[in-house]
Structures are given as structure tokens and as C-alpha cells.
């Protein structure tokens, strides 16, 4: 099957994306998996704009409303034992209804805990990470928040990461 990347987009936005020029990573980075899956510790990283209610603040969507060309570049930490009721969502570019019903459609914490129990993976790291997907300027991601999250993952001995942009 060939995936149509534009199938669910309005025509005007699809046309805009198709004509956008982007800078390709060269060379494309690649880190081989250094050990079998059942010995790997995983972290999950999403750009769903979700957060752990009552533990960390939501993303700064008020500033985005004032400055539509700005997106909050910071990240939030989601613990592996988070419950569905603790998940908040404030992405302004998608409907948050379904992720508030089931976080696993964007950050599959429960599915990875099941894979851990089955022995398919070594473990899910104590912390996963959520960014805000709307980023007209990714400089702060590249220079500050991406490296910060990578250091936190290294501190928790993460071997591999599932990335789920939204």
C-alpha cells in the first residue's frame, strides 16, 4: 500500500505542503540498535501537546493565540504510570477529544507496559516526553529543548525511542 500523506487534509493546505521547500538532513543520522529488543529500554516522544495535569503546566497556548507565528517549544514529562484521567491536551491544530479518551493513540504508554510485561522489550523508561507540534521556528527545539530531553533520556539509560509527531 502507498500511503497518501495528504488524504485527510483540506486541498489548500495539501497544496501548500506539496510546494514547500525543506532542507534535507545530510547525511541522514542512523544509530543501529545496539542490543536485542528484549534488553532495550524505550522512551516515547510525541508532539501531541499533552501534559500531566496537576504536575506540570499546560503549554503556553495563550501566547500562541496572541502570536500565531509562535509555538511553545518547551516539553512536558509524562511518567510511565500516568493514568488517562491525568492527561491534559491543548493542541490548537487538531481535535483533542480522542487523545483525552485514550492517550495510546498518540503516546502508547499502556501498550509499551504490556510489551514490557510480555518480555518483548526490556522496559519502558520512567519518563516519556511531550512537545507541542506547532513549531513555525524549530531553532529552540534544535538548540535547547531537543538536547535537554536527550540528556534526560540518557540519564534514564534509554536505548531506543518511538517518535509520534502530531
Amino acid at each position, binding site marked *: 500500500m502507498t500511503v497518501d500523506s495528504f488524504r485527510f487534509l483540506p486541498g489548500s493546505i495539501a497544496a501548500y505542503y506539496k510546494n514547500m521547500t525543506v532542507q534535507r538532513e545530510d547525511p541522514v543520522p*542512523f544509530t543501529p540498535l545496539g542490543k536485542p529488543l528484549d534488553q532495550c529500554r524505550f522512551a516515547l516522544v510525541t508532539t501531541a501537546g499533552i501534559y500531566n495535569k496537576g504536575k506540570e503546566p499546560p503549554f503556553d497556548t495563550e501566547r500562541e493565540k496572541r502570536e500565531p507565528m509562535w509555538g511553545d517549544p518547551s516539553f512536558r514529562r509524562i511518567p510511565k504510570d500516568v493514568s488517562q484521567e491525568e492527561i491534559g491536551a491543548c493542541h490548537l491544530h487538531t481535535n483533542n477529544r480522542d487523545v483525552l479518551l485514550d492517550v495510546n493513540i*498518540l503516546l502508547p504508554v499502556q501498550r509499551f507496559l504490556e510489551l514490557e510485561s510480555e518480555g518483548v522489550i526490556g522496559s519502558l523508561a520512567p519518563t516519556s516526553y511531550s512537545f507541542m507540534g506547532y513549531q513555525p521556528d524549530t531553532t529552540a527545539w534544535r538548540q535547547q529543548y531537543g538536547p535537554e530531553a*536527550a540528556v534526560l533520556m540518557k540519564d534514564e539509560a534509554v536505548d531506543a525511542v518511538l517518535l509520534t509527531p502530531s
Partner: protein
Amino acid sequence: MSTVLVTLMPFWSERLGVPRTVGVEFPYGHLLGQPGDRDTQMGVIRAALKLLEEATGPGEVRELDYVWPQEIDEAKRDWQPPEPSPIIKMMIDQRRSQRQGEG
């Protein structure tokens, strides 16, 4: 750290250069399927783990065969926010101002 990306837009992976990509034809905000659909969620994850294990070099893209169960027009509406995002609202306002200026 090794990474694997699940995306609705493998178009971008090919252009930007991504270590490993699994593509699914799902609407925005639903990378692993519908809420409560454990089987699809797990199926996509297992495909990502398989690619993580098997890829021998950068840039491999594997597209999965899942078919989104909603009717297309309904799915196109359903993922969108209840009110236009700030950037879309700004563009609508700008277009409206332009038309008023032309009028």
C-alpha cells in the same frame, strides 16, 4: 539512541531524511489508530519495533496496509479543532481585510 518514527506523512520523511519511518494512512491526531482499538495500536507498534530491529541503514520507510474505518469526508472533519487554530484564524482575517480593501 536508536529511533523509529510513526507518521501520517511519509512524504516528509523522504524529503527531510529520517533514520527509520513507519507510515500509516490515518487522520491527524490518530497515529496509532482509534481510541480503544488496542489491536491496531499494537499492530503499528510491532511494525515499528520490527523496523527498528531490521533496518541496516538510514532512510528506510515502511508503509502499512491499515484502512481508516471512517468515511473520508467525516474523517476529514473529525480530526480538525473545534475552532480554527490561531494561524488559520489570522489568515482568514487577512483575506477578509484584503477583500474589504478591494471592495
